[in-house]
């Protein structure tokens, strides 16, 4: 093996520390979720699944899961549709103005979400959208757009513009070119963007606290309330469920990328 490609001991230690730092908080959640106690703690005597039973039979937690899923799905659809159209439009026009538009589209991940939440809160009061599905789907959808714009723009950067010219020279109109040539080529980018937009909505905790009051209780909000009120171990179960779904989505993304490279 090439010596220069091998990391020294310092770099190794650093890399592993960073990895552990990232992984430990996740790995602690699972032992907490199988505790045999009635409060948030590690198992005393033997691991138990009692809190999993509670989670999957409690109407409160199931409703929250369902709400989170519905909101994530619809906001993903919103983010993917507008993000993809924006990325393709910017790519097709490709002027200095569209470069600006692309940067503007990234604002939701540049502006701190607490600032964003404040602004949305004031606006939603006026539009009467507080504590509604529409209200939170709009917010999650809009803040999910950057992920889609980034991934689709990246795929388009590798797209040979001659493919589009070839399609048109053969008589394909804009919609046929879009459906049969451009979309299949950017599909992997759209899928990646969709997965990230979904995860973004699925674990979003700041905006929901501002917008929801009685009707909306997504999983992150339920966990937040649980931590403030009682230390019920079901929270850890909910956290595990959230992590599991996110990991499944990321695995799906990896699988798609693998498939594309082949």
């Amino acid at each position: 093996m090439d010596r220069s490609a091998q990391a020294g001991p310092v770099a190794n230690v650093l890399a592993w520390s960073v990895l552990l730092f990232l992984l430990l908080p996740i790995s602690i959640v699972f032992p907490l979720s199988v505790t045999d106690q009635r409060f948030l703690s590690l198992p005393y005597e033997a691991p138990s699944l009692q809190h999993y039973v509670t989670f999957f039979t409690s109407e409160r937690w199931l409703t929250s899961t369902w709400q989170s899923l519905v909101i994530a799905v619809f906001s993903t659809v919103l983010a993917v549709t507008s993000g993809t159209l924006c990325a393709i439009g910017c790519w097709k026009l490709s002027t200095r103005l569209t470069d600006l538009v692309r940067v503007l589209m990234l604002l939701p991940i540049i502006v701190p979400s607490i600032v964003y939440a404040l602004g949305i809160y004031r606006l939603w009061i006026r539009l009467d959208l507080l504590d509604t599905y529409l209200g939170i789907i709009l917010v999650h959808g809009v803040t999910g757009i950057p992920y889609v714009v980034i991934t689709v723009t990246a795929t388009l950067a590798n797209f040979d513009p001659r493919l589009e010219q070839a399609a048109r020279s053969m008589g394909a109109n804009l919609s046929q070119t879009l459906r049969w040539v451009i979309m299949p080529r950017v599909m992997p980018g759209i899928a990646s963007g969709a997965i990230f937009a979904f995860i973004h909505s699925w674990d979003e905790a700041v905006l929901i606290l501002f917008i929801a009051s009685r009707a909306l209780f997504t999983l992150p909000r339920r966990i937040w309330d649980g931590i403030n009120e009682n230390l019920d171990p079901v929270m850890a179960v909910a956290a595990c469920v959230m992590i599991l779904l996110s990991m499944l989505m990321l695995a799906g993304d990896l699988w798609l990328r693998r498939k594309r490279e082949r």
Partner: protein
Amino acid sequence: MAALQHSLTVRRLAKHYGPTRAVDDVTLTIGRGQFVTLLGPSGSGKTTILMAIAGFVQPTAGEILLDETPITPLPPEKRNFGMVFQGYALFPHMTVAENVTFPLRVRNVARAEAERRVAEALDLVQLGHLKDRRPSQLSGGQQQRVALARALVFQPALLLLDEPLSALDKKLRAELQVELKALHRRVGLTFIYVTHDQEEALSMSDSIAILRDGKLVQEGPPGTLYERPATRFVADFLGKSNFLAGRIVERRNDGFAYAVDGARFVQHGPPPAGDDVLIALRPEKIGIAAEGEPAPNTVEGTITAWSYFGTSFALIVETAAAGTLQVTVPAWRCPVEPAEGRRVRLAWTADASVPVVRD
């Protein structure tokens, strides 16, 4: 087949990008069923003209007519021109057959009919057995053939080819030149071909249009362009050439004599206006003459460098009168053994060279 043939006229075409004139007032007529090559170095505007014909470039001024019909305002998808792109532009997510079916799919051709025509087109380029492969599984030459089949399957009015052979190695390129020419004869369509490779242009075209800096310099059959280049640029770009700058010293009806640094040479053909003249002389039209052998034009010199090409020797000869001359001599009947420093006597006839315009 004749019914499928169309002529194309480019009339006073111009395309400006800011102050740059990519195409500057080009007028060109491409006859029915002809194989016409737009030849020029990079930046000469040849691709811009092709893209304007295809509809991807909106001209600043001028008109493009298919037969007698102006097509300038039509978008590319309405022009019905087949096009082979540089790098082929095959759809990587489709198989060979799906690629070739694409133009029929956009035209809603019935399935059975489409399958028949795709099979026909693939047979035309001898690729029927590879129809289920993906483009990435094909060699460069095979991809090029798929691109051709795809551009021909919908019976286009014209076939436009943008440097289709530039990505291939030399040997394959030579093979495909022969194939392309044969294909042109078989399908009988009008072909418009863009290249910067003068050998490609000479070997395939019925007619060549030479472009430089967005302007059309000379147009004509390959033989005429090679034998009677109008300008120094054409003589230099199409093949190799030596240039002799002289003064006319004697005019006759069928020719003239000119002086270069005191040496006197004769030239066949009508003398150009003015006293200064520039003569283009092809390396292969210069011969090596024995001592005392009579010839209309002779010059003595020393070989300063030489290379062997199997078929020929290329010599660089330093002469007192005509400066440095490139000379190509068939290897199997080279009268002298080439060696650096050897004295040789060069000779050429009065009709071997041609006066050209300085540009």
